[in-house]
């Protein structure tokens, strides 16, 4: 594997996080408006379990990245590198902030998060309706920010792939062998 590519584990973490976000986000929107039912209780729990998993993977990702740095960015205008870099940082921030805001909201609303129905996570806040409602707003706002950033992230990747025709997107593939000319 050349220094131009991500490690297989980093690639796995990336797509796993993407998959979980693509499930958890619409699930969050959908479950919110459901009438109170067993189905709603189940979906809320699944959503929380997904969110906590995103958080755990985020911790693993940063730990892994600390010892396995990402490859340098491909050649592109400086402003594009800065923009891509900022978006990556914000995405990292959000995969921590969003699950944590959800966890805090659950605590404040008096409905503890029990991971997979087995492992109770400590309530970081005491029950408080006003705070719970506020955290719900924060959770929602952060998620719409995530939506915008993921949109930009994907648009950037597609632009590099189809317009510049460079290896930006291919580098995130498990099959990527590294750029021959660079080696």
């Amino acid at each position, binding site marked *: 594997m050349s220094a131009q590519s991500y490690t297989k584990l980093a690639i796995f973490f990336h797509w796993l996080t993407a998959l979980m976000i693509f499930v958890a986000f619409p699930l969050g929107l959908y479950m919110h408006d459901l009438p*109170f039912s*067993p189905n709603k209780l*189940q979906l809320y729990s699944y959503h929380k379990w997904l969110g906590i998993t995103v958080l755990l993977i985020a911790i693993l990702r940063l730990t892994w990245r600390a010892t396995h740095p990402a490859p340098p960015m491909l050649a592109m205008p400086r402003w594009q590198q800065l923009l891509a870099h900022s978006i990556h940082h914000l995405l990292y921030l959000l995969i921590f902030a969003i699950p944590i805001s959800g966890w805090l909201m659950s605590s404040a609303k*008096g409905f*503890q998060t029990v991971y997979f*129905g087995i492992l109770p996570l400590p309530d970081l806040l005491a029950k408080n309706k006003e705070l719970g409602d506020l955290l719900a707003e924060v959770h929602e706002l952060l998620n719409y920010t995530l939506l915008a950033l993921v949109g930009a992230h994907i648009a950037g990747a597609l632009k590099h792939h189809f317009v510049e025709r460079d290896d930006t997107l291919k580098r995130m593939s498990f099959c990527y062998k590294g750029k021959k000319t660079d080696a």
Partner: protein
Amino acid sequence: MKLWSLSLLALLSSSISVATSAAELTQLNQDKSQISFVSKQMGVPVEGRFKKFDAKIAVDPAKPEAGRAQFEVDLGSIDTGNSEADSEVKGKSWFNTSLFPKANFVSKQVRSLGNGRYEALGQLTIKGVARDIAAPFSVKTENGVTLFEGSFTLNRLPFKIGEGVWSDTTTVADEVQVKFKIFLTASAAKK
């Protein structure tokens, strides 16, 4: 407690005539007393309570075995901590409060478990279903106020609490922990 049982109206006269104990407590402190419960939803313990209930009690804290009690819980006063759930549980599948507004408990017997612990046996009626239950409790007196505190496990399904789609116990467990804190004073002292 040897709380429990008594006809609704004949409370005072019968408690005096049957027990004839000067130390009997009959006055329920409505503000401090609590009836709460913990249900498990998707493995998550969720606490709720009933804001309104009444009790006809006659008990001598020195001799709880001779006490009697009757509780009446206003099921519509339920506070699950979630407004959506509050309206749901008043509906037909749960308590059906329009048809069955109250739950009641009538004591039959109180026995000592030793070490200051007692157990009240009696009949609990919810949603037209009557079942015998046993509720262990302790007795503690401070500053002239006696606290009877205990809990018991209520299986919701035999009482038809949560029917139809809600009878799935992987979503809402069958076992509900019911906790009570009953503060009593002598009727003469307070009021």
